[in-house]
């Protein structure tokens, strides 16, 4: 994150809230996209992840007693998008639920690293404490995703074989 570092718990939680909101929006977008490509299993999984991230956003709103998400103009991400947001370039129209969960695991791990940076930074103690709590929550999310992953079979060989691929020039 560049620009102004959060100097108060309110600023920090606004940043966390924006991160969860962006992640939820992206998962919802990916769910629609996979549905358009008739990949129903992955569409359903992304839709579930969108709901989960939306709940995380709502938890922050409730905790902070905010009715709406505060403006996020006081900070900008160091990466092109928020640390928990899926990179669209990592998708494949034939991807499996296992691939989708690996992406989710990666996103949650990036969120842990993001919050841990605040814990180590020279910031007010209250901000570092809030960051430590958020990092712990994200670690818990990593564990939950890993448990979920353990129940989903890994992709079979040739998962991306398509007898009629879209990029064949007629």
């Amino acid at each position: 994150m560049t620009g102004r570092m959060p100097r108060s718990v309110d600023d920090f939680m606004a940043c966390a809230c924006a991160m969860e909101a962006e992640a939820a929006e992206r998962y919802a977008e990916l769910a629609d996209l996979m549905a358009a490509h008739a990949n129903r299993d992955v569409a359903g999984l992304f839709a579930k992840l969108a709901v989960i991230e939306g709940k995380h956003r709502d938890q922050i709103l409730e905790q902070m007693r905010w009715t709406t998400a505060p403006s996020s103009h006081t900070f900008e991400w160091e990466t092109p998008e928020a640390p928990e947001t899926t990179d669209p370039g990592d998708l494949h129209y034939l991807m499996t639920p296992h691939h989708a969960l690996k992406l989710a695991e990666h996103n949650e791990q990036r969120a842990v690293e993001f919050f841990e940076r605040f814990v180590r930074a020279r910031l007010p103690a209250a901000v570092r404490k809030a960051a430590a709590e958020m990092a712990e929550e994200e670690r818990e999310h990593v564990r939950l995703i890993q448990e979920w992953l353990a129940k989903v079979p890994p992709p079979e060989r040739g998962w991306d074989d398509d007898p009629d691929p879209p990029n064949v020039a007629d």
Partner: protein
Amino acid sequence: MNQTTTSHQASAPGDYKSDIKPVWCPGCGDFGVVNALAKALAKMSLQPENVGIVSGIGCSSRIPAYMSCYGFHGVHGRALAAGTGLKIARPDLTVIVTGGDGDGYSIGGNHFLHACRRNVDMTYIVMDNRVYGMTKGQASPTTEPDWDSKLSPDGTGLREFLPMVIALASGANFIARGYTGDPNSLAELLVQAVRHPGFSFVEVLSPCITFRPEQLEWKKRVRAGALKPTADMTRATRRLLRDDGFDLGVLYAGSRSPYEPRGPRATKDVSELERRFVL
């Protein structure tokens, strides 16, 4: 033209997206433009009914359907002509023209030159993926000469069209380049482009991962903020001489006055126009 039906003040990016879901390929850069455009409109607090999005033909030209603003999905290569007409007839609207490199630089290449020259107050966003994606991977004007494909073995051997050079030479009043992998910075560029008076041209690097999967590497090649705005055409021209197509930012922000139609307006208001069409 679509009828927009917003019942409340739009303020969040989601308010600018329609219920129609994009059918683009997973990983297509054009998603980044939809997101950036929605963020830019929200940031400017422009209401959807005060914005007209006009396009031509191609994958990227589907954008008007995915936004809740007024939209016009026009004829191949003629988006700028339609957008110009809309802006002249309804100067109160914010007009944004969208399309791809084939639509804008080949089929609509002549309109591009003259839209720059006319300097009508509108914004032109070109999603450049250096290929005709919708028609299955033919080389476009911006395709590299040595891009080897089944349809152009060993490449076309033709030098690329240089959109920013053409735009600068033809009189565009604002010229910038963005990248879809960074929709937040792209949104900032679009805000600047829309707010700048006259014809604003934003070249957007938008990977086609289906026909040009190597474009996934663009995220490592782009240089954010490498272009710094200048109002000096000579400086901008010199800057373009060392541009490899991956420098991002605002190249040129000029001060030409936008085109204003001379004489009385042909149509005073919309109701007068409606009366003319009554049978």
